[in-house]
């Protein structure tokens, strides 16, 4: 045999032996270690947010508010003596980036949990990974029904009402308020749009026309043209804010005068009017919906508390629906942490959310239980009038199946002092 080969083989053989001996040496020790991200004085959690890209207008302010709430909470002593550190990673609303930043958060930064990961297309791609790592994946900032699969993804929970619940309520209202009108649907080309359409069609039957858009492609002209050609009079729109603005602007330009009824994730007036600039007058009469106090309602006790936090820790951003969302979601998270107790583990946190029963700023109750991981059970409609977006009519709740849409009459609770949940 040749000398190089013989020498090489000898080296390879000894290396292989060494590898065998060294393999799996430290895995068991690591697995049995402490709770990742939790010390006696700190809880480190992470999230993926669209700070840049097509969903950044509006949504980039959600994590700023959540961060501000935790700063406020930490100044009041934290949760069970632990301060919360919130690591926000930008994924640009691109599923490919989400996959990378979430792995970095879990494997490299070793966060305790993921809180409020934003986006339907983005978060769908990390469900498998988070399930495998057994990381609590709380309060996904999206209304896809994917988060409500306790058997497949036992650690994942939604928070906002899902798009099917919302679609059913919107469609019920449209049926009552616009009888005999041609109703169409405009939605995002993923589970967001599909879940919404499912809810709408459960109530209305097949819509007159349906069109979709892709978040990276700003050309909505042809889709709006098709809706105009179909003679749509009411358009139910499952769109992120940037595309609500694009679609309504395009419809106005093409002379399509229809009643817009928009999903709560894309209906925040402050965000939309900033997007539309001097064309914001076309938002007049737009119907949206929400499930938290409206930012403009300064008489609401929650808004009064949030305003104090906002001015102190988040003053550079407007107090809009995105900020209210960020504050309220952080509030629910603190309630869950308190329910999980002093001796915090990942399992205890998941159990605490499954037990549910959290009462806070929401207009409707949460649906949390061991076999329901979705969030709020309903919404209330709002309308833009004279440049002010305010609620009208009753609050409705329903489920994502064939349950009926019913009125919810119980008023929301008042906030505790400083909007910090009492233990």
């Amino acid at each position, binding site marked *: 045999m040749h000398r190089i*080969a013989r020498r*090489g083989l000898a080296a390879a053989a000894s290396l292989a032996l060494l590898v065998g001996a060294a393999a799996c040496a430290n895995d068991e020790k690591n697995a049995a270690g402490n709770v990742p991200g939790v010390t006696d004085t700190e809880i480190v959690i992470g999230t993926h947010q669209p*700070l*840049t890209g097509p969903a950044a207008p509006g949504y980039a302010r959600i994590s700023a508010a959540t961060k501000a709430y935790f700063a406020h909470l930490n100044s009041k002593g934290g949760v069970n003596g632990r301060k919360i550190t919130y690591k926000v990673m*930008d994924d640009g609303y691109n599923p490919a980036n989400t*996959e*990378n930043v979430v792995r970095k958060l879990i494997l490299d930064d070793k966060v305790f949990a993921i809180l409020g990961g934003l986006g339907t297309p983005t978060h769908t*791609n990390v469900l498998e990974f988070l399930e495998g790592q057994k990381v609590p994946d709380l309060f996904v900032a999206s209304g896809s029904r994917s988060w409500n699969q306790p058997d497949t993804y036992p650690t994942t929970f939604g928070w906002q009402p899902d798009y099917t619940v919302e679609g059913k309520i919107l469609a019920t209202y449209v049926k009552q308020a616009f009888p005999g009108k041609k109703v169409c649907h405009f939605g995002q080309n993923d589970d967001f749009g599909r879940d919404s359409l499912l809810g709408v069609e459960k109530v209305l039957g097949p819509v007159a026309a349906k069109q979709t858009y892709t978040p*990276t492609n700003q050309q909505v002209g042809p889709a709006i043209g098709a809706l105009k050609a179909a003679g749509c009079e009411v358009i139910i729109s499952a769109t992120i804010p940037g595309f609500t603005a694009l679609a309504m602007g395009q419809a106005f330009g093409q002379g399509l005068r229809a009643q817009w009824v928009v999903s709560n994730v894309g209906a925040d007036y402050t965000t939309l009017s900033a997007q539309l600039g001097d064309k914001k007058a076309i938002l007049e009469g737009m119907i949206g919906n929400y499930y938290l106090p409206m930012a403009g309602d300064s008489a609401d006790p929650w808004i009064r508390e949030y305003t104090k936090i906002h001015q102190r820790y988040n003053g550079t951003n407007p107090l809009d629906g995105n900020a209210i969302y960020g504050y309220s979601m952080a509030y629910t998270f603190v309630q869950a942490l308190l329910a999980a107790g002093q001796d915090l583990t990942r399992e205890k946190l998941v159990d605490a959310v499954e037990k549910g029963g959290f009462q806070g700023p929401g207009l409707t109750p949460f649906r949390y239980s061991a076999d329901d991981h979705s969030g709020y059970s309903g919404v209330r409609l709002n309308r833009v009038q004279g440049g002010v977006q305010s609620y009208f009519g009753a609050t409705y709740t329903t489920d994502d199946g064939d349950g009926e849409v019913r009125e919810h009459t119980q008023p929301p609770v008042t906030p505790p002092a400083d909007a910090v949940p009492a233990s």
Partner: protein
Amino acid sequence: MTQSPYATVDARPSPLRRLLPPPPGAAGPRGSTLLRHLVLAVLAGAAVVLLTNQLEPYRNLQVARVCAFLCVTAGFTILVGLNGQLSLGHGALMATGAYTVALVQRGLDGRDLRGQWSVPLSLLLAVAVTALLGLVIGLAAARLRGPYLAGVTLAVATLVPAVTTIFTGVFNGEQGLPFPVATPPAFLGAYFQPERWLAWIALLAALLTMLLMANLVRSRYGRSLRAVRDDEVAARLAGIHVARTQVLAFVVSAGCAGLGGGVYAVLTATVASGKFPLELSLFLLMAIVIGGLGSLAGAVWGALLLVALQDLPALLTEAFTLPGGLAQRLEGNLALAVFGLILIVVMLVAPGGLQDAVRKATARLGRRRPRPSR
């Protein structure tokens, strides 16, 4: 004969040639190339396995990513460096491999066919499908030169996102296709790090690619590839079928890209079109030029760079507290800027790429200390 029958063919040597290292010497005076490469591969593999046993999960994931990119850059450097054909569409070929893996895995999972064999099977299919696409592009490429070839491959790169959104029913648009994660086999123990297993899968694919490519470079085909690159007319006179050689180069490099893309999909257990933008194709090209065009060792440098630059913006924004606006602007563009800068510096200082610079440096060291005579 008044006019050469080859007048229509642009027979000038490729301008890429200036960037190339001198051709590797013939195989050593003794020994089989295959055996030598096999031993090298086993040694490198054992060293990396040893490394992965000591690493944290996230570092292992990065090792796995380097291996996945190495599959791509190794094949790509053969196409561009050894055969002188430019492709701006290799990101799209990676996407083809990745989507094949996702579709096969989902198909198997839907039929309750699960097992360790599903990963190699889906990777094999990824290579086959991508090689087929490479054949189609290669057939067009063999008729085109320079900017026209670049244009066609560029079109392929921009086509991928469009195809995935038009055929939403199959590819699920920008949301993409998640599929079950490849988990380590039970005999490795319940606490075996899953990322280490992924690194091993990627490592095996990379070693296989490197082994095949190293042998290809030194074979008759390798010499044909170089002959066609240097002078098509001369190659034709020597009896080499120019078009066939070019198509072959494209097929081989497409197969490698498909394998790399497939492995990348296995690492993330999901595939989405946002992962394969036009920038990826440009990054791949820059990586092999910076590493050293036409050199497999240069492909390793390129793969390392590709992974290192992925984490650069996050690292920088963590190390320095930048103003919010600036940090956001950097997020998407920093990698491109840094890559461009490195490219300029490397081209000025070491036109042959990093690998050539390393080779020259070691040669200089060797000259200073003459080897003891035996």
